[in-house]
């Protein structure tokens, strides 16, 4: 791909869209529990690997059907990740909900280290390549819209993210479940008094966030061609920065923040080389904390999930 500025911007927005899906998990859990879910990056990584495993099983079962295997792979990845997210909530968070802030954070870090090295030991120590057979069609075909050149994969990422965002906003703002979610976020005790099943709502938040992270994971591994056991915490760091940038606990903010982070990263890579992108993310994080610690959209408390 030639590296004109427009291509770089498109690449940055696609990355940002993937970060947004991960950042939503952070921001929703924070909105409901007031705690950071440190194992979220690892859930993303689990999603990446389970999709590849599922595609392997399907290709053994009925052959290499690109669309079917990929779609089912994403679905299986969502289910498995959701399972891990639920397990994370049950093990690391539920019993420690009333404890000192340090306790659930530490246990979540324990879970995240455990999951990283679980994959390291059982699946692979080195990077695994995403099966190119499934992603070649998407990466090699391009759509030209004036000066901008989208690959089909980028269109898929942007389109899927857009659809998911719309569905999520609808869910949060216009359904009974969303009302229960917002009620739990505002006041757990009060919500439970009016009959909201708080435990189930919190578990649902983890499950929803994990399923979104799994989709992001599958697309990220297609986009970068590699899967590795420690990719989770760097994505986690980026997505978390995005969530803070947008105002943690704020759903549209997380999306906005993620797009900004994606663009910053793309421009850094363009200007200085890809080895500096963590430094730029960190610089963004420090700048936000210095200049606007509540985040870009942080004040709209009413819209907080």
């Amino acid at each position, binding site marked *: 791909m030639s590296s004109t500025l427009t291509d770089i911007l498109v690449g940055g927005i696609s990355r940002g869209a993937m970060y947004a899906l991960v950042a939503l998990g952070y921001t929703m859990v924070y909105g409901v529990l007031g705690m950071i879910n440190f194992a979220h990056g690892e859930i993303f990584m689990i999603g990446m690997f389970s999709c590849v495993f599922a595609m392997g099983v399907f290709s053994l079962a009925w052959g290499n059907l690109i669309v079917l295997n990929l779609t089912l792979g994403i679905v299986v990845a969502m289910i498995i990740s959701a399972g891990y997210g639920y397990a994370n909530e049950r093990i690391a968070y539920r019993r420690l909900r009333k404890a000192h802030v340090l306790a659930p954070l530490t246990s979540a870090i324990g879970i995240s280290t455990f999951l990283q090295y679980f994959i390291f030991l059982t699946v692979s120590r080195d990077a695994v390549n995403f099966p190119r057979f499934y992603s070649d069609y998407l990466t090699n075909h391009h759509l030209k819209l004036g000066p901008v050149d989208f690959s089909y994969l980028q269109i898929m990422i942007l389109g899927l993210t857009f659809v998911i965002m719309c569905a999520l906003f609808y869910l949060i703002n216009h359904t009974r479940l969303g009302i229960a979610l917002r009620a739990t976020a505002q006041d757990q005790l009060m919500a439970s008094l009016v009959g909201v099943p708080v435990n189930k709502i919190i578990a649902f938040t983890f499950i929803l966030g994990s399923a979104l992270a799994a989709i992001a994971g599958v697309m990220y591994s297609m986009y970068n061609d590699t899967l590795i056991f420690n990719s989770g*915490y760097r994505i986690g760091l980026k997505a978390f920065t995005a969530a803070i940038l947008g105002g943690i606990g704020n759903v549209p903010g997380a999306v906005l923040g993620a797009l900004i982070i994606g663009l910053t990263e793309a421009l850094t890579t363009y200007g200085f080389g890809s080895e500096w992108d963590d430094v730029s993310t960190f610089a963004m994080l420090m700048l936000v904390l210095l200049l606007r610690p509540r985040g870009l959209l942080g004040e709209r408390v009413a819209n907080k999930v």
Partner: protein
Amino acid sequence: MARWRPYLLGLLGVAALTFPFLWLQLRPNTTDNTIQTAWAPEHGLQFFGDLLPVFLAALLIWLGVRANRRWRLSDTIALTAAWQSADKTWSRYWAWIAMPLVLCGTFGFGPSNLTLMTDVGIYMLLALGLNITVGMTGLLVLGYAGFYAFGAYFFAITQQHAGFFPWWIAAPVAFPLGGLMGYLLGLPCLRLRGDYLAIVTLGFAEAFRETISNLDFTGGAQGLSIEAGNKLRGLAGLSHQQVAYVVVALVVFLAVFFVQRLYHSPIGRAWVAIRENEIAASAVGVPVVQMKLFAFSLSAAIAAAAGVLSGASDGFVSPTLCQFNQSISILAMVILGGLGNTYGVLLGAALLYLVPEYLKRVSMLQDSAFFTSLPDFLRASFLHLADYQFLIFGAVMVLMMLYRPQGLLGSTRRKEEILHR
């Protein structure tokens, strides 16, 4: 049966979730770039076989805890080891008795063991420093190794350009510099919620590692070596390793003394007050932000000084010093030993550093008589156990938080403080 149902369901769930990773294997096909998954039970069997000693140890601990609940064995042990608890008259002097004993240890060990003990000392320093923020003040720091590497790299770079810059000048200079670094980093995020600090320090360590492995004057991925004149060397008939050991041991004693005095001073009381309830602390006049900043910069300063010592004793510095694993190991030491308990974190550092280190050494002994007498699968599991250390660290962190949040050496009171906000 009904009592066991949730456990059985949980176990089934975990088995289902881990099934693909444990019992299947990826078989990439390089000709047409497809992928297939093969049934590979030997994979999962090996995983559980390797963890067998860990399961056995866990079973023993569980049985011990059950027995203790019944017969109160630990009461007698606690009475014999009363110096560790409230008895102030003893706790004030035991360090002065232990110090000559520990220093005499210098002459009983061979060089490789001494190097190991020196490293343990450096990790003890790091655990002491991290304990100030995490254990005493209740703020989570995830990139503590960043400050450690900061100290080490400050020493390595300055001594390259200055020529004569021995460690005993570098350490006192790195101490305030590390503190300043911590202050600058803590300033924007300590005004906010405490858990921002975790992410900011994690980002700092990552960014620092990325910077030092990309720049030329920091030696890139290979790191830098320290000139012979500037590192710890043999003196007055003592070998290089012996000097390093004595120096590190003295610094650890100094740090323990210093931290303990601080902990029992009004500053330490303020830290504990912030940990227990920030709002209440500020209501009774504790300057919350200043105290948090002081705790954080002090622990950063200690890490920087420890970094200089590590560079001076090893003779080189490299970006692996501030890997995420390092930060996690130090955090695990503090948690295992006991959040906020100075002697506990020393014990935690020693255990978590020595156990994996000896596991590594075990693999060198595989031809010895004891090992050849073990059954095959047990021998294999001992050889592989070193790979599993971070998996075990993670599990230990979760289990400690759930069942013994006060750490190995900690009081029941501390447990209640952590579990019920």
